[in-house]
């Protein structure tokens, strides 16, 4: 695959956002806020960062991507379809009977998914298990990436995984936290405060970077940096705006798990088209 320019990546992220809106409207259920705000991260992953082969999903040299926040799988499906894992038309089967695109990712349903996830808090420990195996094999050419929602950090299983990865110095493990500050019942700091988040990860032995999660260049650079850290697992806290790209969804936790209706979808698509790929974060 030819390397896309930054501008092309930004445009593609916006197309993926539009796909997400169409998929969720068609499905009649699903989680728009996180799917939209990770469009830049998933575009950067599938079209720049990951070593992978869409035509050979089990390729032995591939990097691994675990999606602990499995409810955001629409953005992953959209990115995978554009990367060539399956036909784009299949995106509209999301959440429908007989579809390979299950409501939450299922490894056995779709080639290219490494795990089954959705119940929150257990992706990072699976990713740690994978990284542990690569370390046991002295493999220095493969990386395990894991996207984690911020709200799911309420789950204790994550902190078990943090300790484990820190203890074993799993330098080949890179977590990306979608720090959008919302979860179902409200803002994360109201539901169950996570701050000081950076210090918590650091205390568990992780190398921490904080970036604007809508700046694709920053995402790519942060992953390069993370790969250069050889003694610690890495986390990239990506500050994002929930619902990014659709003004009436942005910052509003009510869009965590409600799909747009037909009218809302039309408006959302219109807004996204007018952006023409010009997404900018408010954190940079």
């Amino acid at each position: 695959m030819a390397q896309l320019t930054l501008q092309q990546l930004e445009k593609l992220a916006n197309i993926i956002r539009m796909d997400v809106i169409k998929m969720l409207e068609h499905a009649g259920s699903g989680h728009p806020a996180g799917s939209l705000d990770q469009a830049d991260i998933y575009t950067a992953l599938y079209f720049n960062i990951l070593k992978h082969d869409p035509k050979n999903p089990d390729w032995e040299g591939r990097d691994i991507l675990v999606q602990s926040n499995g409810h955001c799988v629409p953005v992953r499906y959209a990115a995978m379809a554009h990367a060539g894992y399956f036909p784009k038309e299949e995106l509209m089967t999301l959440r429908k009977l007989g579809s390979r695109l299950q409501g939450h990712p299922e490894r056995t349903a779709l080639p290219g998914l490494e795990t089954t996830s959705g119940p929150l808090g257990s992706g990072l420990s699976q990713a740690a298990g994978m990284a542990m195996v690569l370390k046991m094999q002295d493999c220095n050419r493969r990386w395990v990436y894991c996207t984690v929602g911020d709200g799911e950090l309420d789950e204790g299983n994550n902190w078990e995984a943090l300790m484990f990865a820190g203890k074993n110095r799993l330098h080949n493990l890179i977590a990306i936290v979608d720090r959008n500050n919302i979860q179902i019942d409200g803002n994360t700091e109201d539901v169950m405060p996570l701050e000081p988040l950076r210090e918590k990860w650091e205390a568990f032995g992780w190398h921490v970077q904080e970036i604007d999660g809508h700046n694709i260049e920053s995402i790519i650079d942060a992953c390069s940096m993370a790969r250069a850290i050889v003694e610690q697992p890495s986390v990239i806290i990506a500050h994002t705006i929930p619902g990014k790209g659709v003004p009436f969804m942005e910052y509003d936790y009510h869009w965590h798990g409600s799909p747009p209706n037909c009218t809302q979808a039309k408006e959302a698509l219109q807004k996204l088209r007018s952006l023409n790929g010009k997404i900018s974060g408010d954190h940079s």
Partner: protein
Amino acid sequence: MEMFLVANIGSDDIAQEPTRAGLGRGLVKAGQENKNIVGLSADLTDSTQLGAFAEAFPERFVQIGIAEQNLVTVASGMAVMGKIPFASSYAAFSPGRCYEQIRTTICLNDQPVKLVGSHAGLSAGPDGATHQMLEDIALMRVLPNMIVIAPGDSVEAEKATLAMAKNGKPNYIRLSREKSPVFTTMQTPFEIGKAYVLRPGDDVAIFATGTSSYQALLAAKALASDNIQAEVVHVPTIKPLDQKTILASARKCGRVITVEEGQIAAGFGSAIAEFLSENLPMPVRRLGMQDSFGESGNTPDLLKKFGLTGQHIAFAVHDWIDHMPQYHR
């Protein structure tokens, strides 16, 4: 089928060993045969008998600490990368504490993780009800893709461990802390998914699993002196059930009793009752924990208190025969 059981069943001098010891031996052998076998422990390495494996293959042993949710999910991740993880803890903690992770990341994900639940049943004895896992059969056998095994003794546990290492599926093996009689030999057949008629009879079929099968043998011996011929069927694989063997014994005897060291609700006896209700309906008497927790005490005393010794089983059989006709005869 010849069972090659030991000759001194019922005698005080029968060799005794905890079933978990068989897991320990089997895992070292499995590790020698296959370098993809890895062992994971949640700070209970020696008591769950992973110590020998950890010593033989330190590079393939992973210490998780006291974190059972992490234990099973790290195992799942290792399985994704081609390993065959044996993840051990006390049954009260795994599967007790990490059910959803087992369901999603191992069963739905269909990964060949081998869950080792030691100290199951009443075998945790003096530790009391907190540590006596009586609900694990119920929890594990309702999970799609999961295979559930409760070996009868340590020799069978060793064979089961070797078989689990090769079957490519999620497995749960239920083991005991306390010593129990070794009634099988290396020649005794064992295959995952098979039940075995240890002693033929035609008045009543006693289906038993785990170490309860020895108690069933004792019961059958006592019953024989009262001229009751009990067929003892040892069912080490609780899921999938050996339907053919179970059906044949139930049809032949027309009366069925089940025995397990666990809750009868949704447990092993329930599995037998479910199966027979659809294929050969008849009343099924289930011996086991009757909707109660255990308590501190020595395991033999607990087995007496909760009616799970050979003597109690024999008594229950008498009672059952007095009340029930032979069905389908």
